[in-house]
C-alpha cells in the first residue's frame, strides 16, 4: 500500500483542506484536512458526536461546507457531484428504505435514481448486490419485516449496486451481530482487494483495526491524528515498569536517562517512555545495575492502538459538547 500513498491530489480518493461545517449554535467540523489515498482502507474513527457523519455528509454533497475545499476522486465537490457520485457507494447514518417496498424494489428505485445506471442490467445488478450481502432469500420481503441487521446489509447492498471506485460506509456494523460484523469486515477487505478505496467510519477501533491501512481520528470536530496504522502506532508511548526495593535511586537513574516523572510506589517504579529518542531497554537495565539498583523485574509495554485511540479522544462516556 505504501507505494500508493503519494501525496498529489490526483492520487487521493478524498482530500479536504480546512473543511469547516458550522451550524448556528456550534461548529461540528472545525477545519480538518483529510487525506485518503486511493486504494486505502481508511478507518475514520471518533466517538459519537465528534463530527464524523457531518464530514461524510459534506463529502457526499448532502450538506454544504461552511469553508474549505473538498475533492472526491480528484474532483471538486459539490461542483462535480454528478460525475463523481455514480462512482461512489455510500451508507450514510444508518440505512433508510421504503418500508412498504421489498428489499429488491428498494434497490431498484435507488438504481433508477442514478442516471448513469443502465436500466437493462438493473435486475442482474440488484440480484448480485443482494447476493453479496446474503439477502437473496429476503429479496421479495417488505423491508418493514426486516431486522435492523438485515436493513444494514441492504444498505451495504445499495452501496454496491454499481462498479464503485470509492465506498463511504458510515458505521456499517451498527446493529449487526458478531457474525455479521465479521462478514462486513470480509466484505470491506474484498472490496479493497478489487481496487476500491474504502472510507469506513466507526466509533469502535476494534471493528476496523484489522482491515484498515490508514486511520484518521476525530475528536470534538478536529482531526487529531491521521496516517497509516503503523505511523499512528509508532507515535504512541510505552510504559516502563520496574520492580525494585531501591526506588529512589532508580528514579534518579531514569531521570538521568531522560525519563522524567518516574513514580515510585513501594517496590513499583513506573515511567512513561516517549515515542522517540528512547534509550534501548537493555541499556536502561545496564545503567540501573551499574548504579547498584536491585532489579527484580523489568517490563516495557508498548501502548496498544486502543490506548492510543482513547488517549486521543478521551475516555469519557459523557458527550464532549
Amino acid at each position, binding site marked *: 500500500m505504501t507505494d500508493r500513498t503519494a501525496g498529489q491530489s490526483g492520487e487521493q480518493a478524498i482530500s479536504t483542506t480546512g473543511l469547516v461545517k458550522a451550524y448556528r449554535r456550534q461548529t461540528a467540523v472545525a477545519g480538518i484536512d483529510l487525506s485518503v489515498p486511493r486504494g486505502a482502507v481508511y478507518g475514520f474513527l471518533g466517538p459519537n458526536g465528534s463530527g464524523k457523519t457531518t464530514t461524510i455528509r459534506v463529502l457526499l454533497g448532502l450538506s454544504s461546507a461552511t469553508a474549505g475545499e473538498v475533492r472526491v476522486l480528484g474532483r471538486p465537490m459539490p461542483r462535480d457531484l*454528478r460525475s463523481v457520485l455514480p462512482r461512489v457507494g455510500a451508507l450514510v447514518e444508518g440505512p433508510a428504505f421504503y418500508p412498504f417496498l421489498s428489499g429488491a424494489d428498494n434497490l431498484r428505485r435507488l438504481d433508477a435514481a442514478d442516471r448513469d445506471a443502465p436500466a437493462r442490467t438493473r435486475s442482474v445488478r440488484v440480484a448480485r448486490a443482494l447476493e453479496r450481502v446474503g439477502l437473496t432469500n429476503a429479496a421479495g420481503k417488505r423491508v418493514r419485516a426486516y431486522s435492523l441487521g438485515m436493513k444494514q446489509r441492504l444498505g451495504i447492498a445499495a452501496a454496491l449496486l454499481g462498479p464503485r471506485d470509492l465506498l463511504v460506509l458510515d458505521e456499517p456494523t451498527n446493529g449487526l451481530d458478531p457474525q455479521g460484523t465479521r462478514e462486513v469486515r470480509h466484505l470491506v477487505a474484498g472490496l479493497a482487494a478489487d481496487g476500491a478505496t474504502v472510507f469506513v467510519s466507526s466509533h469502535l477501533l476494534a471493528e476496523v483495526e484489522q482491515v484498515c491501512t490508514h486511520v484518521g481520528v476525530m475528536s470534538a470536530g478536529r482531526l487529531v491524528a491521521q496516517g497509516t496504522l503503523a505511523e499512528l502506532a509508532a507515535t504512541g508511548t510505552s510504559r516502563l515498569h520496574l520492580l525494585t526495593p531501591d526506588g529512589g535511586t532508580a528514579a534518579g537513574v531514569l531521570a538521568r536517562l531522560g525519563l522524567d516523572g518516574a513514580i515510585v510506589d513501594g517496590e513499583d517504579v513506573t515511567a512513561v517512555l516517549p515515542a522517540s529518542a528512547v534509550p534501548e531497554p537493555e541499556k536502561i537495565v545496564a545503567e540501573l545495575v551499574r548504579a547498584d539498583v536491585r532489579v527484580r523485574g523489568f517490563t516495557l509495554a508498548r501502548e496498544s492502538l486502543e490506548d492510543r485511540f482513547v488517549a486521543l479522544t478521551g475516555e469519557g462516556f459523557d458527550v464532549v459538547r
Partner: protein
Amino acid sequence: MSADQRAPREAVPDAGDGAGLPSLRGSLFASELRTLFRRRRTQAILAVLAGVPVLIAVAVRLSSADGEGGRGGPPLIDRLSHNGLFVGLTALIVSIPLFVPVAIGVVAGDTIAGEANLGTLRYLLVAPAGRTRLLLVKYAGAAAFCIAAPLTVVLVGAGIGAALFDVGPVPLLSGDTVSVPESMLRALLVAGYVAVSMLGLSAVGVFVSTLTEIPVGAMAATVTLAITSQILDALPQVDWLHPYLMSHYWLSLGDLLRTPVSWDSFGSNAVLQAGYVLVFGALAWARLTTRDVLS
C-alpha cells in the same frame, strides 16, 4: 403495461447522451409512479374518493325507491334517478371543495418531506438523483395523482350509475341533449378540468414539503391553504384578491357542460394554475437545491 409492449421497448437502446426522449420504462419517473400508486395509503385515498359516488348513488337509489318521485332534493342529485351518468359528475362536484384537496394535500405534502422523514432522501441524492431532477419527478408524480383522483371519481361514478340507474342521452345545462358516448367525453373533460385545477395546489404542497421533515405537517399546511383560499374566495370584502386565489375557478366547470363548450374558464384557470406552478415551483427549487439534507 402488457406483455406485447415489452418486447419492442426492450430493443430500444438507452437514451444515449440525453438525445431524444428517454424511455419511460425503468426511469426514475416510472419508479416514482410505481412507488406512489403501489403504496397502501395512496390506494386508500383513491378508495375513499371512489366511495363518494358509491355513497351518493346508493343513497339516491334507496330514497327514490321509497319516495317515488323524490322530495325535491338539489336539482343535480334529483336527476340521478333519471340518468345514472350524472353520478360521477355529481360526486366530483361534491368532492371538489374538500375531498379532492385533502387527497392532493396528502400526496403533494408527502413528496419531499416523506422522503426526508424516511431518510431515503439522502440516498436518492447520493445515488445521485440530482436535486432539480428529483423535484421535477416528484412534482410530475403529484401531477399524475391530480389526474388519477378525479378520474377515479368519474369512472367509478359512471360504473355505479350505470349499475343502479337507467342510462340514456344526457340533458346539458344549455338545454341540449347529448348522446351517451358524448356525455362520457364530457365527464372526462370535467375530470381533466379538476386535474388542472389541482396543479397549483400540488405545487404549493411540494413547496411546503421542502420546508420540513415532517410529512404530516406539510400535508396539514397544504390542506389548510386550500381551505383558506376557498374561504377568502367567499368573502366579498377581498374581492380584489379573488382572481388570484388558486381555488377561484375550481367550481367554474359549468362551461364544459354546455353546447357548444365554452373554454373561457378553462383558459383562465389554466393560466392561474400555471402561475402557481411557476411561483411555487421556483420557491421549492430554490429551497431544495440549497438546503442541507440532515435527515
